[in-house]
């Protein structure tokens, strides 16, 4: 369905880190990098699609308009998307809709974050109607959920903490030379094992940090790309932002209980996201050259590999041990270094995944280049039934 595709003309990022500045600064840097990469004048952009987080949203600073003003009001149409970890993908989906409907030809998609130190925490006050308040009151943090999934893998499939450490070692190897990564250090199994336990069986080196960072895309209609001599630009072939299907099979943040599956079959949300994307792109898991997945924890990367159907259920640790998910292997996963090397910058992260796929498909990824990459897929999931998968091809 090539008529539903759009072109990625330019990508740009502000390096991830803890820089202590405004999210606007990072966003402008990423937007200008993407404009330069695309060879596009800012004043030619017809639609600005911002990805927001509640920290950087109302009051005062709504993502799309905030970046449009910082870059210089020029009369473009504007949109802001808030969808937790999928904010960037929904902002991209808004741009795609505008382009495919013929309302615009050229759009900027942008997400940026400034994060607090330590655990992401709920809003203040006694609010028992908010599941986020209830779970923190009980002492259930984000790593609790990642650890429950990790332990479940150990019990069901025989995964070990050494397997989880191997994910960290692989991703740290990938991100070592990535100029946009925050953590550029090769880790050893001994270093992972020596890091403090956070939520058994996960140690500090198994769990991702939160970071400042920004990512931006310049996207256009295929016709526009042809007219400017960029017919060979990577294309967005699918954006899946489906909701879960009742009843939930897995306990999800921030819930204290799953849905009851008495009257309806239980469904995995994570598995549903790529399934819709494969269908939309008209491709299957065998067509995929590389994947950028949301490794909020090392063990979660293994769940995603199975949800993306890159191997059978329960086989991801074996795939990892075989070396297949390393750059140079059959199906590299997180060649950017993933969240292990970046840390999570919520509204920017889904777009950062698309930036990496774009560099990989253009053959510009340097030491982490996946040779001959033609199809890349992303996966992420966050709070409140939000998640996304994007397919990029060339």
């Amino acid at each position: 369905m090539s008529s539903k595709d759009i072109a990625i003309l330019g990508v740009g990022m502000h390096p991830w880190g803890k820089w202590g500045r405004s999210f606007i600064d990072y966003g402008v840097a990423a937007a200008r990098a993407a404009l330069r990469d695309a060879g596009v004048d800012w004043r030619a952009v017809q639609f600005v699609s911002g990805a927001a987080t509640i920290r950087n949203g109302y009051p005062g600073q709504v993502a799309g308009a905030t970046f449009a003003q910082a870059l210089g009001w020029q009369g473009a149409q504007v949109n802001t998307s808030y969808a937790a970890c999928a904010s960037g993908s929904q902002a991209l989906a808004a741009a795609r809709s505008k382009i495919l409907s013929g309302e615009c030809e050229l759009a900027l998609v942008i997400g940026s974050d400034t994060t607090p130190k330590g655990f992401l925490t709920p809003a203040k006050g006694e609010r028992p109607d908010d599941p986020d308040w209830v779970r923190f009151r009980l002492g259930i943090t984000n790593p609790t959920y990642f650890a429950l999934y990790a332990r479940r893998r150990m019990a069901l499939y025989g995964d070990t903490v050494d397997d989880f450490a191997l994910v960290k070692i692989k991703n740290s190897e990938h991100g070592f030379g990535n100029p946009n990564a925050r953590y550029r250090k090769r880790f050893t199994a001994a270093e992972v094992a020596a890091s403090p336990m956070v939520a058994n069986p996960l140690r500090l080196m198994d769990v991702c940090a939160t970071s400042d960072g920004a990512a931006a895309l310049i996207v256009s209609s295929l016709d526009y790309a042809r007219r400017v001599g960029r017919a060979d630009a990577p294309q967005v072939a699918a954006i899946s932002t489906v909701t879960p299907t009742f009843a939930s099979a897995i306990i999800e943040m921030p819930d204290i209980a799953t849905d009851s599956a008495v009257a309806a079959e239980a469904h995995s949300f994570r598995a549903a996201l790529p399934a819709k994307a494969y269908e939309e792109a008209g491709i299957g898991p065998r067509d995929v050259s590389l994947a950028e997945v949301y490794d909020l924890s090392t063990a979660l990367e293994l769940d995603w590999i199975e949800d993306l159907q890159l191997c059978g259920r329960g086989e991801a640790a074996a795939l990892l041990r075989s070396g297949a998910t390393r750059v140079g292997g059959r199906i590299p996963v997180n060649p950017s270094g993933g969240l292990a090397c970046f840390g999570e910058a919520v509204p920017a992260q889904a777009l950062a995944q698309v930036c990496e796929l774009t560099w990989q498909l253009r053959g510009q990824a340097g030491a982490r280049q996946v040779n001959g990459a033609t199809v890349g897929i992303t996966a992420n999931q966050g709070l409140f039934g939000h998640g996304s998968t994007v397919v990029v091809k060339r």
Partner: protein
Amino acid sequence: MSEKTERPFLEGWFARDEAGAHLVGARCTSCGTYYFPSQSRFCRNPACDGEQFEEVALSRRGRLWSYTNACYQPPEPFISPDPFVPFAIAAVELERERMIVLGPVVQGVDVDALQVGMSMELVIETLSETPTERHLAWKWKPAV
């Protein structure tokens, strides 16, 4: 030690009767879907438009789906003893309700004592204390 007032950390989420402790849930009278926390507004099963619910005591026992612990002090609104004491957390699958419910594990039971698939039972125990109050919560405990 002075007398402290005891109260549930959340009103109406759990109770104790002659048979023991249980979570207070709801059941849609149209399709039978259970809810915890309880609710009385509308059924979330997309095939059901039920708006009538009956209050039910959820199963006191279930199988351990998975478990972990909190090695670091969680942020507010968690109320920690000083110093913080690590505690285990369980996800327990209730067979009749076909639902997984999270909860802290009782004091003194470490992750080493837990195994996926083992039988767990619900108890009521102190979650947190202030100088004047003791807050109670549901917790999971290996069943005897």
